[in-house]
């Protein structure tokens, strides 16, 4: 199976989805089929990647000296599997969510969703910088209709902000690409970096690094470039779940993996002294994001700031550069994806079914929606980094990396943030199971009143995954093995 198929399937699926707009069942069947086909196509490449023979496809030259090329290397596979696998779950969830709320413009929604996931897979599997930039930009465009889905003043404003941030970031990447092409560098990603020939040209290297890092930092929501993400929470919740917790923002974090590990490489970065800059921004974002999350009453905003903070876990991990930190950073991409999507799913189920959006309205809701809130509780435990959840493993590696690299202050940052995670999530669980009637109801409802099964089942699956993949981190998807592969390849002396 070639990586091209994994990218082309979701992109092409947009067409039948758009054409079957008048028949909702058919349209959603197309969406689900596309999600399954994409996940299958990505998953089928896993064995090759793990065996050290990643699948490749090269198309025609897109710019002189730079072809559209895909390569299913370990890092790309990890992100592609995460995005495509969770797309399947999200599609089922979307059907439940959108039908419950009777949202408009659903055809546009499903088509844009398919394009977004296709672009994210393209970002993941891009073999060179030009292809990466191409799909990074397409991702921006494809998600715009999703952000502005409700078409009211707030979402149009959020859409403008979103475009202003991400298009500017895209320009930085394009400028860097043009610069590399003008320098005659073959910008094919290579574990350990491809810029060794420029060693010693400090001005050029710093210029390129500033452009590339700024370009990916926007989507990774590194402060002070983060404010589009909380604004984008006006989108329907499945969008926030898959795109603004997994695909889009992880494309930014993944961009850091590519820039740090595959463009510059640890040796050059250490030589330039660029690591400390990135690490400082990431550490500030990580801490401040968590603190801001504490004060957010709207549930989705709280989760958004939590995402801001967790993306910087990954960015900081790549900047620490110790092998263990890289394992942690890569595995944290998967761990945070699976865990955070559960939380967003729960928030969406509560919004769609009980019409509650604020933490302060959630008193007692756990008795009405026990399955949802149980999943929420599981994911909260996971987010706090308790064993045996996925995030325990990633945080352990990240912390170990900080110690290995003799950067103990960052260990403190990680630990502090773990505590803050618990502090902003656990109270929600406590409130939900308080023995009081839900707001708007006279008495505590004894009977269970759950959201549609199309929403509850997906969120329980992802909550289960957060636990199972913590116990068996290599099960089915090989996330841990991929993370170890990436770390070994990038940080090899």
């Amino acid at each position, binding site marked *: 199976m070639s990586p091209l198929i994994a990218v082309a399937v979701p992109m092409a699926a947009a067409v039948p989805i758009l054409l079957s707009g008048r028949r909702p069942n058919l349209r959603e069947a197309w969406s689900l089929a596309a999600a399954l086909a994409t996940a299958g196509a990505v998953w089928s490449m896993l064995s090759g990647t793990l065996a050290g023979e990643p699948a490749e496809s090269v198309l*025609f*030259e*897109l*710019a*002189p000296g730079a072809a559209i090329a895909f390569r299913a290397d370990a890092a790309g596979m990890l992100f592609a599997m995460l995005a495509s696998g969770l797309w399947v779950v999200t599609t089922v969830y979307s059907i439940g969510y959108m039908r419950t709320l009777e949202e408009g413009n659903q055809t546009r929604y499903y088509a844009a969703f398919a394009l977004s996931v296709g672009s994210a897979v393209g970002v993941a599997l891009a073999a060179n910088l030009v292809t990466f*930039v*191409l799909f990074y*930009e*397409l991702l*921006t*465009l494809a998600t715009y*209709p999703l952000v*502005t889905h409700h*078409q009211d003043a707030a*979402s*149009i404003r959020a*859409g*403008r902000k979103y*475009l202003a941030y991400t*298009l*500017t970031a*895209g*320009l930085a990447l*394009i*400028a860097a*690409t*043009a*610069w590399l*092409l*003008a320098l005659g560098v073959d910008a094919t990603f290579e574990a350990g970096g491809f810029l060794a020939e420029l060693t010693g040209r400090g001005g050029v290297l710093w210029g390129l690094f500033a452009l590339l890092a700024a370009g990916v930092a926007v989507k990774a929501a590194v402060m002070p470039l983060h404010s589009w993400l909380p604004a984008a929470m006006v989108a329907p919740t499945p969008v926030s779940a898959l795109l603004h917790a997994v695909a889009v923002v992880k494309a930014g974090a993944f961009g850091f993996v590519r820039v740090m590990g595959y463009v510059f490489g640890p040796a050059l970065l250490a030589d330039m002294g660029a690591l400390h800059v990135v690490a400082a921004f990431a550490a500030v974002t990580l801490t401040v994001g968590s603190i801001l999350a504490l004060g957010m009453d709207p549930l989705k905003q709280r989760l958004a700031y939590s995402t801001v903070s967790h993306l910087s876990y990954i960015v900081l991990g790549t900047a620490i550069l110790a092998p263990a930190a890289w394992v942690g950073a890569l595995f944290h991409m998967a761990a945070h994806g699976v865990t955070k999507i559960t939380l967003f799913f729960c928030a969406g189920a509560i919004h769609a079914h009980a019409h509650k959006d604020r933490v302060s309205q959630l008193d007692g809701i756990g008795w009405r929606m026990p399955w949802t809130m149980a999943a929420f509780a599981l994911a909260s435990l996971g987010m706090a980094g308790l064993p045996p959840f996925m995030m325990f493993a990633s945080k352990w590696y990240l912390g170990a990396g900080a110690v290995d690299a003799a950067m103990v202050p960052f260990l403190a940052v990680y630990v502090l943030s773990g505590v803050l995670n618990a502090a902003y999530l656990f109270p929600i669980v406590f409130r939900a199971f308080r023995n009081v009637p839900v707001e708007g109801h006279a008495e505590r409802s004894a009977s269970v009143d759950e959201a549609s099964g199309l929403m509850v089942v997906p969120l329980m699956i992802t909550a289960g995954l957060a636990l199972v993949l913590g116990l068996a981190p290599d099960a089915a998807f090989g996330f841990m093995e991929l993370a170890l592969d990436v770390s070994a390849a990038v940080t090899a002396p």
Partner: protein
Amino acid sequence: MTPHLPILIILPLLLGAFVVTLCGLWRPRSAFPLAILAVGASAAASIASLVETARAGAVRYALGGWAPPVGIEYVVDGVSAFVATVVAAVALLVLTATRRMADREMGDRPGLFYGAVLMMLTGLLGIVVTGDLFNVFVFLEISSLATYALIFMGGGRAMIAAFRYLIVGTLGGALYLLGVGYLYFSTGTLNMADTAARLPEILDSPAVLAGAALIFAGLGVKTALVPLHWWLPDAYNYAPSPVTALMAPIATKVAAYAMLRMFLTVFPAGYLAEATPVATVLLVVGLGGAVAGGAAAFAQSDLRRILAYSSIAQVGLIAAGIGLASPLAAAAALFHVMTHAVMKAALFLAAYSVRYRTGEVDIDRMAGLGRAMPWTMLAFTVAAVSMVGVPPTAGFFSKLYLAQAGLAEGLWGVALVVLVSGLLTAAYMVRILERVYLRDAPDGGSAAEAADPPADMLAPALVLASATLVLGLANVPIVTRLLVPAVGP
């Protein structure tokens, strides 16, 4: 056949202009098919010459058998064949698409309209294929006179816009002529190749410098470079729809081509860039225009005016590419000539389809059109995305090559402005698209009942829109096989 290709590009249009006018008086319905036939023949000759020049190099044609440099010479080389193909092909698509608008707005005498259109195209393509400096002036005036008349057909405000354009356009022509005079008295020749051969000995002469400055000032008016641009928005705004849709994609680009011709053929390599400030001025004015035009477009609410100011901005980018005066930059400028012609034609066709169906030109009254006219707006959106410069559309690659050319010269400021101009474009395009897609049509508004226009209007717009994608994906062969060899030393 082959040695006659240069004249075959012009001849169908020139003869067609008279035939169409006369036949149109006799049988009004015959005007349109005859005009299409003439433009089609010219487009076929252009494509044939593009193939021929790529295969065997430039084709030279001595008009009337008088050998150059005494006689007038027509030359089709890689650059002119490329521009001629773009101009003729886009003109063919636009004319096809605007037939219904012409019927509605031009009414009873289509012969006069199509005659003037063919005359304008004669002038534009004449500028492209001629190898004679004075002949450029003649064709410039032919196309200008036809354009004044065409704009004037809009009536009302268009009349005064046409008159103002006439004054400033003729002034530009006179400046160009004066510049040619300086060169002629310095070299004793009007043939471009011959001028190029004689100039290196007398480059110190202030007369040559004066000639260059006047030629570029004159062409600058026709190219609508800031600050010589002010005739353009009114002219585009008030002219009849088919005229603007035809003029906007190609007219200013041909003047820009004439500038590029001065760099490539007439003046010795490096002279304009190193010994004179012409190239620097062009670069600065072009980049300034790209920013100013984009900002001005953002301040408009009439779709035609937005697109007009956007043209000023995009032509600024082309001028900047010419002013960079490197082979890569020239190739980038030529690529953008093509890209902009295709995008702008698609945008204007979509805009006028809206006007045709709803009568609206104000973007505030276009709410809900995304639903009412989905295919029209698809064409508009794709072209707009290309204008912003998102990969893999052709507009992205224009900007990439321009930025790359700037960086290769060590002028990173150029790359910066080129890329930031994309953000400005995004700003005004998002303003339009938000209204079209994200606002619901007001009840009872004309937008609510609109539908896509008939297929013969819609298809050319969609062809042009998809061309922005195809040309973007095929940019490497176009640039490396056609343009770089064509502008190379």
